[in-house]
């Protein structure tokens, strides 16, 4: 198998180097076209994300170094700085690596979903620019299918792990699918903004932003179409809010037990969800003990994240098993691919034998011409059935080469040319225009 993969990722390379070697959208387009100049490279595609830059292709040994040189030179970097961070995979290992990447096993956060979309995007771009042929196309298509399967058949991506997505998941466990729940933001930290963004995306409704600096509240409000208020008015808004995200830099708790106690009475115990991301904490921890109040501080969120990550890690073995099965299937497909030209030559040989014999007796045949054609097709199918099935089976067993050699010598296939009218490779997969 002449598949290769070279690259660097968050495990092998610091971010200072990764950010220099990553491709922007336009650069990716340009680089894919420029790779045509790399000698002996057959089919290629580039996967470039914030956590990895990888080049996949096909070529003889030695092509790996040419690809690395291309990457380094393209970005105008010094060869000796980047070299130690690169990994190189060949053949089955390259395929396995892509399968692990697509199923999220190689990601910084195990099981994350973003990588799936990134591979799909890279695939579409390479396909548009026609840098893919049958083998890499098949490999990526399989990796995408595998990524989907790994996520649906195992719990590898179950449970949120980032603070903002945990907040959304918890909010949905309290309020159901978010449909206009009111959000109150106390303080305008980066994390609040990110959490708010996730909540809005999930369906949260009216947002009110309270900050000691009104201008900052206004600035953040404008980004999300929220309502800015002065910091002295937040308690009034709390009565009608469902979700509170707090991240002020106050040295003492600003959300007091007594205040929430009276607010809960007024709310008639409609649930209230506090996400306290501030350190030191903004919300009195005793509030979490109240009925119908759910309080998660930064440590609680981290605990949930770790629990979910542990859950995901338990699923790695199941994912690896799925990958192994897919690799076997890919190997078989690849091996059988080699049989394609042999089968075509064998078919052509049978055709010529039958045509010769028919030519000899054709005038004596008294039946209808269509019937004769059908009869010939049936005889050919019958003759080819057993050898083709045997080849498929041997591809599965990994012993196809022996059979190919035998067929070659038995029928002198090397002396025969491939039929011109037939497609070059019968066993090549049909290309789907759209990859789901």
């Amino acid at each position: 198998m002449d598949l290769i993969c070279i690259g660097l990722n968050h495990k092998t390379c610091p971010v200072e180097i990764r950010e220099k070697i990553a491709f922007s959208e336009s650069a990716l387009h340009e680089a894919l076209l420029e790779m045509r100049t790399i000698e002996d490279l057959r089919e290629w595609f580039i996967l470039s994300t914030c956590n990895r830059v990888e080049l996949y292709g096909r070529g003889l040994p030695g092509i790996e170094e040419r690809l690395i040189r291309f990457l380094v030179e393209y970005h105008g970097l010094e060869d000796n700085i980047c070299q130690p961070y690169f990994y190189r995979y060949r053949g089955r290992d390259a395929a396995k690596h892509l399968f692990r990447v697509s199923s999220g096993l190689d990601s910084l956060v195990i099981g994350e979903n973003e990588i799936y979309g990134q591979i799909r995007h890279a695939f579409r771009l390479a396909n548009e620019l026609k840098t893919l042929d049958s083998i890499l196309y098949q490999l990526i298509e399989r990796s995408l299918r595998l990524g989907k399967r790994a996520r649906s058949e195992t719990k590898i991506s179950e449970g949120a792990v980032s603070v903002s997505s945990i907040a959304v998941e918890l909010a949905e466990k309290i309020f159901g699918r978010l449909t206009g729940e009111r959000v109150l933001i106390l303080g305008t930290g980066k994390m609040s903004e990110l959490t708010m963004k996730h909540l809005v995306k999930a369906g949260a409704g009216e947002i009110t932003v309270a900050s000691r600096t009104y201008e900052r509240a206004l600035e953040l409000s404008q980004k999300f179409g929220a309502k800015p208020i002065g910091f002295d008015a937040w308690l009034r808004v709390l009565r009608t809010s469902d979700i509170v995200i707090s991240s002020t830099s106050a040295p003492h708790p600003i959300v007091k037990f007594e205040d929430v106690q009276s607010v809960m009475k007024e709310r008639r115990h409609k649930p209230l969800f506090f996400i306290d991301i501030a350190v030191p904490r903004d919300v009195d921890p005793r509030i979490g003990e109240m009925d119908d109040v759910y309080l998660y501080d930064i440590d609680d969120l981290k605990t949930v994240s770790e629990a979910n990550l542990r859950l995901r890690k338990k699923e790695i073995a199941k994912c690896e098993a799925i990958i192994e099965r897919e690799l076997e299937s890919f190997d078989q497909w690849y091996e059988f691919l080699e049989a394609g030209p042999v089968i075509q030559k064998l078919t052509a040989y049978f055709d010529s034998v039958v045509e010769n014999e028919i030519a000899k007796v054709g005038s004596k045949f008294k039946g209808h011409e269509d019937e004769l054609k059908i009869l010939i097709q049936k005889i050919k199918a019958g003759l080819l059935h057993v050898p083709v099935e045997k080849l498929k089976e041997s591809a599965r067993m990994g012993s196809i080469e022996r059979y190919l050699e035998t067929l070659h010598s038995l029928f002198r296939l090397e002396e025969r040319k491939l039929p011109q009218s037939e497609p070059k490779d019968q066993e090549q997969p049909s290309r789907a225009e759209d990859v789901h």
Partner: protein
Amino acid sequence: MSLAFFLLSGVTAVYLAAFVFFLREFLSAETKSTSWASRLIELGFLIHTLLIFTQTFTLSDKLSSQFHLPVTTLGEASGFFAWSLAFVYLILLRQLKMETFGLILTPALVLFLIPAFFPFQVNPASLIHFHDTYFLLHILSAFFSYASFALSFIAALLYLALDRALKQKTSASFYHKLLSLDDLEHFIFRTIFLGFFLLGIAILSGAFWSKSAFGTFLLREPKSFASLLTWAVYLVIIYLHGILMRKGRRMVLMSLGAFVLVLFTFLGTSIFQTGLHVGIR
């Protein structure tokens, strides 16, 4: 082996299989659009309906009377209650059906089917009333209302389990497939409202039956008073939740308390009295 016994064994086996499938689906990562467990619970309900028909006609034939519901013994009443539970969940509340709910419902159904395997003595006092339409309406609405309250009880338990998990903050794996608090609360109070409405019908039809059979609208016996008390308690709960908009854990706990009263009305009153309220003696 009689046809009824064969069907009873069949429905129990199907509900048990549904439970196994629910458990598998709950523990697995896959979210299937068509759940085998849900299909099985529906199949179980169909077989159970066939069983109820068989029992009804066999009984009517055996007792040479017009029509008998299979609620004349404790075993029959328990089995009929299981059927009512499935009927209310699958038919009356079909829009509120929840996949994870089956995980608790199916073992409950099996539990109520077990007494139906054992022979109990028929309560002869009840048999003479089956020709009365009010009596039949009373029986059916009472069973359906108890079933509704039982479903609200199951949902309330799930609510408290989820509330606890959310408060403990670590058991994230537990609640991934559980419904939200809001959905569960919605289910609890919808079933309570349905149960309250059906219990109202049961009380009214019972009063009319009592008038025609005994000449009085209110029989002075524990079950009648317990039913009125249960209805009144649920009226308060509905008022607090529906009119005063009270929500949350306390309301759920209140619904659990009310269900204890339902249990007392359905089962407990037979300690004080036997005979009139069929099947429970």
